[in-house]
């Protein structure tokens, strides 16, 4: 078991003929992901690393079902591509693209909800169940199969933590990047709920950052519903208030949005809070065999 994706997941790549799309499709394929098709309007009939390319998703679906789509479509066309995926009832839409206008995201997320498509992102590295399936851009070598569930706003921070864990023999059940915000299709809380139900996940690592209030909602959920150990790290302790720290969502606007306040809320909810990835590893070692 793992959450959201597994060995059977059939993956579509939107924007597969672009520089990033074609490179990452290759890296995913090498990782063992079942990439069944790619879509780029106007490039139908071509192939990328042996993957057939179609003009339309409906044409791709004619040769077999698709469980998840990963979109590298540039921001100004991202909404159209997302609506196409939603209308074709693809259950999981991973929006890798950053810089999508807020109003387009509001439309995408609202429409996805009414049609039953789960959106991960935008501005996300995607997700991976190590050894099974990667619908994302995580560097393959930092990953290892295991039982730690990782949910992160930042892609790079999740790579840091996975690298450290994997090198010490602690693998991951699924690593989910929810994106840098400030709008999210899937929240920390949503992923925590999935990890709580997943029998393969024994320990959860929550990687958050300054800005917004999502970690407080996650803390409330953990207090009420999560029985598995949760280890939390919030980055941006040294970030000045009012500064945009790279992610659109990482901007301290209110008192509750600092790292200290978030860490305090998570600690009160029963999480083990840490100051850096090394402390996450130390605590996981302490939990011992439970998390291997």
């Amino acid at each position, binding site marked *: 078991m793992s959450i959201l994706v597994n060995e059977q997941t059939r993956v579509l790549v939107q924007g597969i003929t672009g520089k*990033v799309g074609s*490179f*990452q499709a290759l890296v995913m394929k090498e990782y063992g992901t079942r990439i069944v098709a790619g879509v780029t309007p106007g490039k139908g009939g071509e192939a990328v690393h042996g993957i057939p390319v179609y003009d339309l998703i409906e044409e791709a679906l004619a040769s077999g079902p698709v469980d998840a789509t990963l979109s590298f479509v540039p*921001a*100004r066309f991202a909404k159209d591509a997302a609506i196409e995926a939603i209308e074709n009832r693809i259950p999981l839409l991973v929006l*890798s693209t*950053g*810089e999508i*206008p*807020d*109003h387009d995201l*509001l*439309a995408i*997320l*609202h429409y996805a909800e009414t049609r039953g498509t789960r959106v991960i992102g935008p501005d996300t*590295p995607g997700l991976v169940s190590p050894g099974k399936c990667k619908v*994302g*851009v*995580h*560097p393959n070598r*930092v990953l290892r199969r295991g039982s730690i569930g990782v949910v*992160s*706003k*930042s*892609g*790079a*921070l*999740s*790579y*840091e933590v996975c*690298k450290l864990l994997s090198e010490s023999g602690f693998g991951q059940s699924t690593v989910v990047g929810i994106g*840098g*915000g400030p*709008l*999210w299709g899937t929240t920390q809380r949503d992923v925590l709920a999935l990890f709580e139900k997943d029998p393969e996940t024994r320990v959860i690592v929550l*990687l958050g*950052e*300054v800005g*917004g*209030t*999502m970690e407080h*909602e996650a803390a409330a959920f953990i207090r009420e519903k999560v029985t598995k150990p949760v280890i939390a790290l919030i*980055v*941006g*302790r*040294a*970030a*000045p208030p009012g*500064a*945009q*720290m*790279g*992610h659109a*969502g*990482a901007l301290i606007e*209110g008192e509750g949005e600092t*790292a200290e306040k978030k860490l305090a809320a998570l600690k009160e909810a029963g999480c083990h809070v840490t*100051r*850096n*990835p090394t402390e996450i590893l130390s605590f996981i070692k302490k939990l011992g065999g439970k998390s291997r």
Partner: protein
Amino acid sequence: MRLLEFQAKRLFQERGIPVPKGTLVRSSQDLEGLRYPVLLKAQVPVGGRGKAGAIRTVWSAQDAATALRELLKTSVKGCPIRAVLAEERIEASRELYFAVLIDRANRTPLLLASASGGIEIEEVARRDPTRVARIPVDLCLGPAEHSVRSLASRLELGDRLGEFRTIVERAFGIFRDLDATLVEINPLAVTAEGFLALDAKLLLDDKATFRHADLFRTLAEEGRALAPQEKGPAESLAEAAGLTYVGLDGDVGLISDGAGTGMLTLDLVQDAGGRAANFCELGALANAEGMREALGAVLANAAVKAVLVSLIGGLTRMDEIAEGIAAYLGEHAIHIPLVVRMAGTKEEEGRATLRAIGVETFDDLPAAVREAVLRAKEGRCRSS
């Protein structure tokens, strides 16, 4: 992009939201022909102008000239005042709060209203949350009639419902048509003649520039001309290149290929006893050219004693990033220690490129942080 008050009011007026009569004043000549009393409001893109004394009421031409001279010598939160909006003073029977914004937690546009206008809405909410009415709106449908009536009832508007509906619809129109993330009218004055926006705050989504290229560019240029921001050389270079850059007051220059890893590195530098000179993230420019530009920007800050490049690529390819570092070092002889931590996609290729030009890389982030903090300290000792 945050518009200046007078820019926002111009858009309000074009779209049928009444505003007080006003003129933009940049020198004492512009004061001629005004009828007193007049409000002089500094045009700076920051909040808290009232508290900072940047909004004055003047009763005569002489008062106005004196107040203007003072204002033009002042800065508000680091923004020097270059222009002032001179506006007629409105006698309002009531001052309300009204805004259209994005409720990020619920992923929907939101109407926000309160009978307590004129003060910050966060302050109103803190004192008494029941005084703030919040109603979500469907982006396509726009404000529903019953929502408008519900707000009007909460605001006890009585027979002024029709006038209020017009304001709500037009404010939502601005929000939707201009890709705004916030349209705020605080206060919204109720007078015998009608409703007026006494202040206007408008945030436009830079990510939607492709849809409004001419308008956004014109507004941004006008804003820069009327309210120039004081920027150091590093910040100016980073902005021109399109990099994320936040100036800090330490001496370890930071460059990262992701926001999360950048913030982590910033925290680790602090925990190791060092002080970062900046936060710089490549973001969408995580390629050779972005890396080259970032080194130029960070090194333009004379306070920098060591540079720490913290990289863990997923989408970012280390082979490309290494080319950028090599290109910069090929063009510039730098005398400041450069510490590179490199891991992730195509790391072997990246390492090899850097090794060929004599730059060794770290794999362990905490070790790289310790090294950079130490080298910055050595730099401080040498220069003192």
